[in-house]
């Protein structure tokens, strides 16, 4: 067989592997990827240094296929062999380096496996100002805090705790389930969130919450909330209306507003079938379902809906008010923040927001919702 025959055989196996992945047949996909890798490596062996670009592209392809087939030893051996060849061009060299980093990370994670609960979620922030392996600190800190809030709230909801509106998680939750940030090889800017095993976990009521299910529950909540345009699937998964609204608002806080990034993609290595991209389409989808469940103005008593755009300058959840500075410099007070929880609204201080309220006949504004304004 010549190069082309091996390469086409590899393409056909890889095509089948991707089809298996689409159908959720992970094991069959890995088997097909290994067959594709075998064929691509056979094609690679027939190339010489007179075609350096073809050589580099084929080497990257073969290593990637071994990686996707979960044969990390063959993947790293092949990557090292071709990185040692001077003929490999810069673009292929960068991709082989990146693949090796990923392989090292996978090896490190295997070493750490006893210290973390099974299941982790990988978060990739892509596009906009985000570079390969680097991103604005503000952006990442804000998203990580929102993810942490969601994580704790998933634990609390699963443990049948009432919705917490103020302050951090209770000591039993914080002591038992500690989310950790685990670095990933750069593709865009990405990291994983894993759950550190803690001796205190035994104190938690295991009958009500299986610790190993946290990542699964987290993913179920995020994927359902982000993709559900009618709101029905979310209602089924999260029957409590307060938790439901809070999760929707937290997911909305993850959506892009200013062009600093294009999408936040959440995946799980343990669940190939689950992936959610929170992008420009997510916010309008959430707007419809959130609006449907918000309090409506009592038109009979002269109430009307109101919307303010400005900078959130001050906030006192205990005294039940917030102040927005509008474009003309006026500070407008909005009261009755019973709908607000602090980890949803807190990160918006000093940012441009849209506040929705009900204006009473007397002219007072009663809070219904707040979100970051789009630039």
């Amino acid at each position, binding site marked *: 067989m010549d190069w082309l025959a091996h390469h086409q055989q590899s*393409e056909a196996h890889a095509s089948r592997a991707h089809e298996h992945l689409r159908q959720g047949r992970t094991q069959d996909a890995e088997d097909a990827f290994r067959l594709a890798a075998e064929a691509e490596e056979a094609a690679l062996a027939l190339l010489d240094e007179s075609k350096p670009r073809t050589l580099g592209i084929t080497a990257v392809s073969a290593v990637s296929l071994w990686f996707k087939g979960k044969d990390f030893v063959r993947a790293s051996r092949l990557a090292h062999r071709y990185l040692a060849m001077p003929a490999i061009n810069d*673009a292929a060299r960068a991709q082989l380096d990146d693949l090796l980093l990923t392989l090292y990370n996978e090896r490190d994670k295997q070493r750490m496996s006893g210290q973390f609960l099974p299941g982790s979620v990988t978060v990739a922030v892509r596009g906009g100002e985000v570079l390969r392996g680097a991103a604005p600190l503000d952006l990442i800190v804000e998203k990580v805090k929102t993810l942490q809030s969601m994580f704790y709230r998933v634990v609390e909801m699963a443990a049948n705790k009432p919705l917490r509106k103020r302050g951090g998680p209770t000591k039993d939750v914080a002591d038992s389930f500690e989310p950790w940030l685990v670095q990933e090889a750069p593709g865009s800017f990405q990291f994983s969130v894993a759950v550190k095993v803690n001796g205190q976990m035994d104190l938690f009521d295991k009958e009500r919450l299986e610790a190993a299910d946290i990542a699964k529950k987290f993913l179920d909540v995020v994927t359902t909330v982000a993709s559900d345009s009618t709101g029905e699937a979310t209602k089924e998964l999260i029957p409590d209306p307060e938790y439901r609204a809070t999760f929707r608002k937290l997911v909305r806080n993850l959506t892009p507003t200013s062009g600093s990034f294009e999408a936040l993609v959440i995946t799980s290595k343990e669940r190939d079938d689950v992936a959610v991209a929170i992008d420009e*389409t997510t916010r309008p989808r959430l707007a419809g379902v959130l609006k449907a469940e918000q309090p409506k103005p009592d038109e009979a008593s002269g109430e009307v809906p109101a919307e303010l755009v400005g900078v959130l300058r001050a906030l006192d959840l205990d005294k039940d008010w917030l102040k927005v500075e509008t474009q003309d410099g006026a500070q407008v007070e909005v009261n009755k923040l019973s709908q607000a929880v602090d980890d949803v609204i807190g990160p918006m201080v000093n940012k441009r927001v849209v506040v929705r309220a009900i204006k009473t006949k007397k002219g007072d504004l009663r809070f219904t919702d707040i979100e970051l304004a789009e630039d």
Partner: protein
Amino acid sequence: MSRPLRFENLHPRHPIDPHQLQGYANAAKVCLEKHHAPPVTFEAVSKGETVAYELQWQPIDDMLRRSYNNADDAKRDGAYVIAFAAVEDLEGLVSIGRAETKTGADYYLAPAGTSPEDFENAVRLEVSGTDGNPSQAKTRLRQKQQQTRDGTGEEPAIAAVVGFRSKLILVERA
């Protein structure tokens, strides 16, 4: 006056796996039918010029719709085949090979008739599909061009964005 853009049956003009091409065409039909009924006119914008294309397809059934229920995968795959067809018509380039990457796959383009054994002068194609509005599609193209330049240095590349809802095909050199 629009001209037809045939995104099905690209094999053997595009000498890559025919099953993969058929899968991409199915994904494209699912994405198109989410917003439009056939035929529909798309505008392709490349190098400052606009070309109107008529896209035609057989209505899909529930089985096909269910098979491509992952919207992100369907948009990516559907965009591939529409980009292949558009770039062939606009630039005279056909896809000659697929190469795996860590997270997906790259496609390489070359003038029709080029040997698929030779990637030496091939152009890499970066594709993205979106259901966003025209402004979001243009932003996506700029981001794709930047990412392509960041990722490959001096390697020749084309970025393409297919706006399924906005009926746009944007094609530019990265």
